[in-house]
Each structure stands twice: as structure tokens, then as C-alpha cells.
């Protein structure tokens, strides 16, 4: 069998039914084999977007997302998506074409050392040197991408090797790599110790992250939180794993988190970190982070434990396996939740004094926060929301109120503008029966606007709600607050005409300039047959609050 055909056979064995990509010279054999393959190829318009679509697909489905690109520029265009998948631990496999083996190292046409370029931003990568290795490498790539702490794996396939004939037999044995054995079970002694510490805590808080979503452990988290009256907060990446409508929910923590969540972290005596990595957007000034707290840190990646904040009770394992054990151990202790009453009255005081709030718009002005609340209303709070990066992302995180996991898809770690639209396409391909809405900023959306062509041509009916303030809003906000209002490179001006642009792509387009029309126009956009964009003209200079200025402590929140 031709190696390229064996590649697709191997993908089928892995259960792949959708891939995202763009062909070119070096991956012609793969695209030729695609003609006979039993899966759907979504033809993107830029490889970066193919990569983000694969990420959106993985986020929404929990399966491995797959993106194809050719050699050279095709591969380098994937780099941002690969880095993004690394930072947010998204299970993805990137398959690139490479120039013929006799051209490697000669600066051949469209040659780039993509394995070398991506080495610091992949979980693993494989350069095919023998055509017989292709099926084996594909299975290794899926195994590594999807197990342990998930992440991107790159497989680079030289053109001549993809054309070669090999003996192919479907793999039946599981992949076994001697240098790769994730610890999943969690040490029971440590789990017991953690339960006892939780039982003795007077001011505990559960701090969750994207690991709960990656580990599909939302139900297990809820069971743990049901055992007692623990307050719960989450990072941006973990939103939805714990329901925002629960009384125990304090809102998101971190730079644009709620005061209640950040103050509770600041005063906690015990922080139970679950699948979270104490990123600088969470801790602020590290030396003043949670000064009175002891830390239980549960994570599947041992290198995350004590990386930024020293853990008192480290537990390495898969949250889906560790949390039920912790729940069991905790229940056995028969604690009295009234010991938390004092803690809750303090938290409730913060919640009462500092709710998430904004000045309502007057004379039809559309406040960005109001726009997010209206999105919640028209989607019933049930849509899959993808986001770009900036103020709109933070407002969506603050005001949408996610109650289910895998409904909130955004670029957290790398903060990639232009992520939202391609990610929405990937999510909609994965979940065709769900409403998928991209909340975009006007600075971000244009970075991958060409993907409207993908949405139209591939008939993927995603909806874009554009929060248009005419600025690179978050940068403008920082220049206003921390750079003496010396605005630099942040005005987007009147171009483009988003409605005409959408229509030019063959998508629906509407513009909303009055808050009274917003609900109706959002509904019309959602009901439009096919992809559609709603250009919402929001207050141009609204700032996103509250916030912890970079490098400050939670105590120093402003706004």
C-alpha cells in the first residue's frame, strides 16, 4: 500500500472523521490519498486557521483535532496554532508535508525545518525517515497528544516517503513508549492527607483550571464540591466545569476575576488547586500571593507542581481518577460544614459590596457587558461560545455564566488574537447540532477573517457577534491606565465595513447601533440560514473591570 494511504488508514483506526487543512506541493501524496479516505476534510483558507479549527474541534469534542499543512510556509503558518495548543494543553496532531528526503538540508523550494522550529512548542514531534514508520508514528502521535497532559504533536512527512509503497497491517496493539508513562492514579496516602487538611481548613477555596475540562472531570468536581460548602473559583480555561449558577461559585479569579474570588484566595488558609497551574494572570505578584494559604495541588503534570507556588500536599494524577477518591476520603471524615459559616459571611460581604457591575448605557448606547448578557439571553446560556483575545474575551468570561464544560473555547495561555472564528468552525464541525457563536473583537477578527470563506464554502453555519469598539481595546485600556494615555497603534478606524465584508464572503451581515435593537438582531443573526456576522457598535472607551494591574497583588484590585 502507498504510505500516504496507510496514513489515512491509521487515522481511521484512531477514529478521526474530520481534518482541517490546506494542500501544497509537499503534501500532494497525502491529498491524493485523501480522495479515497473515509473522512471529511475542511479546507481552510490559512494554515493558522486550520490549526485553530482543529483546536476548536478538540475543545468542543474532547477528541484529538487534526490539521494538515504543506512544507515551508504551510508548516510555518501552523506555528501559532501549535504554540496555542501547547499553552492550553489541547490534544492536537499536526501533519505537515516536507520536501523530498534528497532535498532536505539543501534549502529546497518550500523547505523549512519545521521539526526544529517547533521543538520548544510541541509536546512531541516526529520526522518520518522511513515510509514504514508512518502508521506507527501516527498512532504514537495520537497516544501522546491525547494522554497525560494533552498537547500538540507534529508529524513531518517527506513527500517521497509518502509516495513509497509499504506493507501495511492495521495496528492492533496499544502504543507503548518506554519514555512516556503518565502517572494517572494519584497517591492514596496523599489523597487522604488532602482530605484531612480540607476537613481542618477554616477558610478553604477550590481553585480549578483547564485540567478539569481536559480530564473530563466536571461531574467529579461537582461531586467533590457537594461534599461540603466549599467556595469554588476557576481560571479562564476552566469556566463551565463548575456551574456558574451554583451558590458556591465565586466567579472567575485572576487579573479580571471577581473581587470575591481574588479576596478569598488572598485570605484562604487552604487552596485546593485542581488542574490549574498558578499562571501569572492568576497569582499576580507571586511573593504576595495567598500569603496565609497552604496548598493542595492536583495535576497530571508533575512539572507543574511546585513550579510557581510550592505545594504542601502534591498529588500527581488524572483529576478524573483522583477526585472521586478525594470525595470518598472526605466524606468518610464526616465534617461539620458550620465551621465554614464565618468564612462564608466574609465572602458574602465581598460579593455584596463588589458585584460584577457596570453603568448601564443611555440613549441606545450598547455597553459591551450588556451585549454579553444579551448573548446569554438569546442563546439560553446554552451555546458554545468561542472567543478572540482582548476585552470582549474577559467580558464574555465575566458575564456569560457558563454552566457546562466545553462550552467556552478561547485562547488563554498564548492569547492568540484571531483564534475565535476558526475555532468556532472547528467546534461547529464537531458539534453540528449545537449553537456555536464566536464573540469577536474588531482587532482580533480581521486577523483570520478569511475563514468566513471556509464557513460559507464548507457550509458550517457559525455566527459571529462582533464587539466592535474601533480599538485594540485591551491595549488601549492599558495605555489609558498605565501609560499616561499615550495612545499608540490602537485605533482601528472605520475600515472595514463589516456588513459588506460578510456579504462579500457570502455570509449574512447585520449592524446594530442601538441597544433597543440588539435582541432582535441577535435573534435574526442566529436564525440566518448559514454563517452570519452581527456588527455590534459598543461603547468605544469602556474599560474592563475589575482588574489586578500586572505585577500587583489581589489586594490591589482596581475598578
Amino acid at each position, binding site marked *: 500500500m502507498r504510505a500516504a494511504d496507510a496514513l489515512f488508514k491509521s487515522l481511521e483506526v484512531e477514529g478521526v472523521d474530520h481534518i482541517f487543512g490546506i494542500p501544497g506541493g509537499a503534501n500532494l501524496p497525502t491529498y491524493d490519498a485523501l480522495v479515497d479516505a473515509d473522512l471529511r476534510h475542511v479546507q481552510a483558507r490559512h494554515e493558522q486557521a486550520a490549526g485553530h479549527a482543529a483546536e476548536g474541534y478538540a475543545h468542543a469534542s474532547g477528541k484529538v483535532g487534526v490539521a494538515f499543512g504543506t512544507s515551508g510556509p504551510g508548516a510555518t503558518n501552523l506555528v501559532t496554532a501549535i504554540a496555542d495548543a501547547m499553552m492550553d494543553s489541547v490534544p492536537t496532531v499536526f501533519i505537515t508535508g516536507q520536501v523530498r528526503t534528497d532535498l532536505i538540508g539543501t534549502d529546497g523550494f518550500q523547505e523549512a525545518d519545521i521539526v526544529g522550529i517547533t521543538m520548544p512548542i510541541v509536546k512531541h514531534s516526529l520526522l518520518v525517515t522511513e515510509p514504514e514508520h508512518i502508521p506507527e508514528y501516527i498512532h504514537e502521535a495520537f497516544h501522546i497528544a491525547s494522554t497525560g497532559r494533552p498537547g500538540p504533536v507534529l508529524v513531518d512527512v517527506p513527500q517521497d516517503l509518502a509516495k513509497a509503497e509499504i506493507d501495511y497491517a492495521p495496528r492492533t496493539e496499544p502504543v507503548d513508549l518506554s519514555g512516556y508513562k503518565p502517572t494517572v492514579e494519584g497517591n492514596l496516602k496523599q489523597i487522604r492527607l488532602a482530605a*484531612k*487538611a480540607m*476537613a*481542618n481548613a477554616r477558610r478553604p477555596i477550590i481553585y480549578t483550571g483547564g485540567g478539569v475540562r481536559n480530564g473530563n472531570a466536571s461531574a467529579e468536581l461537582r461531586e467533590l464540591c457537594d461534599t461540603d460548602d466549599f467556595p469554588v473559583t476557576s481560571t479562564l480555561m476552566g469556566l463551565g466545569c463548575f456551574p456558574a449558577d451554583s451558590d458556591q461559585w465565586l466567579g472567575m479569579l485572576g487579573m479580571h476575576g471577581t473581587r470575591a474570588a481574588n479576596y478569598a484566595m488572598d485570605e484562604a488558609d*487552604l487552596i485546593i488547586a485542581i488542574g490549574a497551574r498558578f499562571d501569572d494572570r492568576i497569582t499576580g505578584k507571586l511573593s504576595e500571593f495567598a500569603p496565609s494559604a497552604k496548598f493542595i495541588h492536583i495535576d497530571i503534570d508533575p512539572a507543574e507542581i511546585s513550579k510557581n507556588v510550592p505545594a*504542601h500536599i502534591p498529588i500527581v494524577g488524572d483529576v478524573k481518577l483522583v477526585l472521586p477518591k478525594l470525595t470518598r476520603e472526605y466524606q468518610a471524615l464526616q*465534617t461539620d460544614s458550620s465551621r465554614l459559616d464565618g468564612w462564608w459571611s466574609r465572602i458574602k460581604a465581598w460579593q455584596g459590596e463588589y458585584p460584577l457591575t457596570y453603568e448601564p448605557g443611555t440613549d441606545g448606547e450598547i455597553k459591551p457587558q450588556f451585549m454579553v448578557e444579551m448573548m446569554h439571553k438569546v442563546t439560553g446560556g446554552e451555546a458554545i461560545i468561542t472567543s478572540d483575545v482582548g476585552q470582549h474575551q474577559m467580558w464574555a468570561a465575566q458575564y456569560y455564566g457558563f454552566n457546562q464544560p466545553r462550552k467556552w473555547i478561547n485562547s488563554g495561555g498564548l492569547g492568540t488574537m484571531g483564534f475565535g472564528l476558526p475555532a468556532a468552525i472547528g467546534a461547529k464541525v464537531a458539534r453540528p447540532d449545537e449553537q456555536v457563536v464566536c464573540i469577536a473583537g474588531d482587532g482580533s477578527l480581521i486577523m483570520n477573517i478569511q475563514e468566513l470563506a471556509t464557513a460559507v464554502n464548507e457550509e458550517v453555519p457559525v455566527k459571529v457577534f462582533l464587539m466592535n469598539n474601533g480599538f485594540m481595546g485591551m491595549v488601549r485600556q492599558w495605555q489609558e491606565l498605565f501609560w499616561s494615555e499615550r495612545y499608540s497603534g490602537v485605533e482601528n478606524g472605520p475600515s472595514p465595513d463589516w456588513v459588506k465584508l460578510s456579504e462579500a464572503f457570502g455570509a449574512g451581515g447585520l449592524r446594530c447601533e442601538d441597544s433597543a435593537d440588539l435582541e432582535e438582531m441577535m435573534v435574526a443573526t442566529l436564525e440566518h440560514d448559514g454563517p452570519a456576522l452581527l456588527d455590534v457598535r459598543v461603547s468605544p472607551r469602556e474599560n474592563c473591570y475589575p482588574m489586578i494591574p500586572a505585577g500587583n497583588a489581589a489586594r490591589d484590585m482596581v475598578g
Partner: protein
Amino acid sequence: MASTDMVRLEDLHAGRSPLSGRKHVLSILVENRPGVLARVAGLFSRRGFNIDTLAVGPTEDPDISRITLTLDGAVHPIDQVTKQLHKLVNVLKIRDMEPEETVAREMALFKVSAAVENRAEIVQFAEIFRAKIVDVSRRALIVEVTGSHDKIEAFESMLRPHGLLEMVRTGEVALARGGD
């Protein structure tokens, strides 16, 4: 309730300081595949870890190579370094060598300017350090010396006043003592 009283939060400690304050020799077994050294070296530069010495070579198993590297535990959290290294799929085993239980050796070649009048003294030093003269020319000698890092440092300091023209040192290589 009695059992819960056994763990008081005040009694929990976060373990030892991440900085050990001494030199560490890491012996790393890796798959013998193209690009593995680049992955290891790349990891060090990406995480801001500085390698002091590095030696790479085959092992008794042709599929496995050994990377021996030394780094300063006063500035690098060794625990974090080894955990990050473990995440590389091609890394099979890492051993943070205990100084007392390790035989560690380094080799160096020194080219010394050796006029007739001080040649005898250099040869004498070489004998004391069990070094070998491996090349002799009219103006210079090449001396080969093997030993611990400190011994080579000491030998270098003896030779330097005579006019050290060039030197080359391998990284340290190390094996654990005993039969395991």
C-alpha cells in the same frame, strides 16, 4: 472527628528549598534518535537553565545514548529541571548523581608553550598529576590529563603561568559506584 484532628494546617510544610546550592551531575539516558540532543539542549535554553558541562556518547545498548551534564544547583531548581526533562518522550531515565556515590571524570588537553628551560618543570607537574605528554614540538607540549573536575582545575592553574596556548576540556562523565 478525631481522625481529622491529626492534620493541622500549621503542621504542613512545602518541602525543601528548590535550590540545593551545589553542583549537580545529571546522567540522562535517552533514545539514540536524531534530534534528541537538540530537544534536551533546547529545553535548557527555553527554561533559562544554564548547562555548565555536557558530554554525550553511546552506552552498552546501541539504541540508548547517555547525556551527562552538570549544572549549578545554587541558581537552578534541579527538581524542576529533572521534571521538565522527564516530559521529553525520548528521555528514558534521569539520575541526579549523589557526589559520594559517584565516579566522575573529565579529560582535558593543554597545549603549553614549553621553552627548553621550563620543559622539565612541566613534565614534573604532569607526573604529579598523572598526566601524559602526548605531543612534543619545538615550542610546545600537549598534555593530556584525566580526573575529577577539581583536579583538572588545579592542573590548569599550575600550567597557566608557563603560557597556556590552547586548552580543550570534555564535559564530565559519571557512573554510580556499586553493582546496580
